[in-house]
């Protein structure tokens, strides 16, 4: 692979994992705009552990654990708020994390933090497949069914005995764990961290991938991240029109496929349509 292709592949993998971090809470109707904050926690934790001689794999695991714990700690008070207030609270959390990292000199502060061990694309892809498999498996369980039910009708789902708040907390926490993984992968591939990278735009893109790919199936965010990481690259030849083209693509998609690229109906219909025709 050329250097360019390797970089794109690495970014793609990180984006896919981040998309699943956004997907988990979205799948039960919660918009988390603090993905970047959880990514930063994962990235810096993994980098620090690695800097103290912890092996690469364990460091990444440590980063994921740290962001999971942060996710749990944040979601319990934050999920008392609903809808737009929840989103604002997660956004604020993310900004606090970035501000703290920017000011802690032990973590490099504004001059950034150098990460020891490098991770190449192949093991990164393996980690991505693990995350994907975990989400596909979760979606096939009762918990997955509950997430969709809560997204449809939160209050109504309580009637069946579902503990709605616990489902929401679990989804946001698992998503935060995935964000930590994405952050750790970023840290070890690029070997350099700066707090400013983990901003709102990063969270927004993660949410965008999940929404545009579609929330109805666990494969949606993969498709979303794939398409919307690669489209801007293909549009690179159009130079300054690149982001105009990208914007047009997003608007067209919202018009034509408001439920996302990949819907259950699409999957359901494909084999049957052929047989009937």
């Amino acid at each position, binding site marked *: 692979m050329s250097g360019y292709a390797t970089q794109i592949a690495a970014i793609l993998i990180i984006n896919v994992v981040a998309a699943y971090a956004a997907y988990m809470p979205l799948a039960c109707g919660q918009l988390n705009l603090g993905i970047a904050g959880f990514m930063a926690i994962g990235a810096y934790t993994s980098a620090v552990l690695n800097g103290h001689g912890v092996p690469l794999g364990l460091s990444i695991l440590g980063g994921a654990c740290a962001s999971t714990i942060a996710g749990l700690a944040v979601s319990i008070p934050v999920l008392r708020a609903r809808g737009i207030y929840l989103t604002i609270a997660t956004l604020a959390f993310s900004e606090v994390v970035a501000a703290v990292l920017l000011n802690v000199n032990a973590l490099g502060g504004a001059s950034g933090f150098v990460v020891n061990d490098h991770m190449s694309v192949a093991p990164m892809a393996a980690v991505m497949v693990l995350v994907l498999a975990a989400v596909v498996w979760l979606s096939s369980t*009762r918990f997955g*069914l*509950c997430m*969709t*039910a809560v*997204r*449809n*009708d939160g*209050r*109504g*789902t*309580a*009637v*069946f*005995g*579902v*503990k709605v708040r616990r489902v929401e907390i679990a989804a946001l926490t698992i998503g935060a764990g995935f964000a930590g993984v994405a952050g750790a992968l970023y840290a070890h591939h690029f070997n350099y961290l700066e707090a400013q990278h983990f901003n709102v735009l990063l969270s927004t893109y993660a949410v965008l991938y999940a929404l545009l790919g579609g929330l*109805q199936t666990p494969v949606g965010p993969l498709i979303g991240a794939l398409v919307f990481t690669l489209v801007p690259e293909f549009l690179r030849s159009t130079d300054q029109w690149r982001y105009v083209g990208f914007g047009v693509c997003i608007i067209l998609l919202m018009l034509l496929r408001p439920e996302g690229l990949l819907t*259950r*109906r699409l999957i*359901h219909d494909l084999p049957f349509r052929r047989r009937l025709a």
Partner: protein
Amino acid sequence: MLLEVRNLSVSYGKVAAVNDVSLHVEEGSVATVLGANGAGKTSLLNAIMGVTRAQGTLRFAGQTISGWSSARRVSAGMALVPEGRRILLSLTIEENLLMGAYQRRDREIASDLGRMYELFPNLARRRNDPGSVLSGGEQQMLAIGRALMARPRLLLMDEPSLGLSPLFVREVFNLIHSLNSSGLAILLVEQNTRMALQAAQWGYVLKLGRLALEADTEELMKSDDLARAYLGDNTTAKHRLHA
């Protein structure tokens, strides 16, 4: 006695939706709660199900359940058919039914699913379609089937005939009758007074959150009190209509 509600009150802020209501449902019987819009019928059912906070004492099958979560109440044998059906539109018909069995851990869920499809052949044919493809009447059947999947001893039904065609209204009441014949106790909240009184053995009338009247349904059908409690003091208007 299967369900006993004593001095139940529900308030939203300063507004009292249900005020000091006591009622009971006998094992294997149908009781109905009648009342106009805003009488507090839905709040009453939600409080019994545990999805709305309430003051008062609730006893179910010999246990005091007042502080219990909805989950525990479902496990104990209560299920609610909510107002407006509230089908989960992104889930398939089969998944909707399975959500009803959420609290169960036994191995007979699959066979119960089969029984629901026998009971509702319309649903069987479209079990893998999303809930959104169903008509209002079919959605009501699905909502009832979903509640039955919990294997309840007491079925709470919130206006099951609302917005349905006369044909489906009759079907819903036939179903209520046959479910009750098989031993299921039902607490039925309705605006369709005539049908509800025919289906139930005991009737309660709510007016602005308070119990205005309770009696044997045969008595209620004959009495003028019902019309007065139900329609306020507008009985003259009703007489004029008939004249």
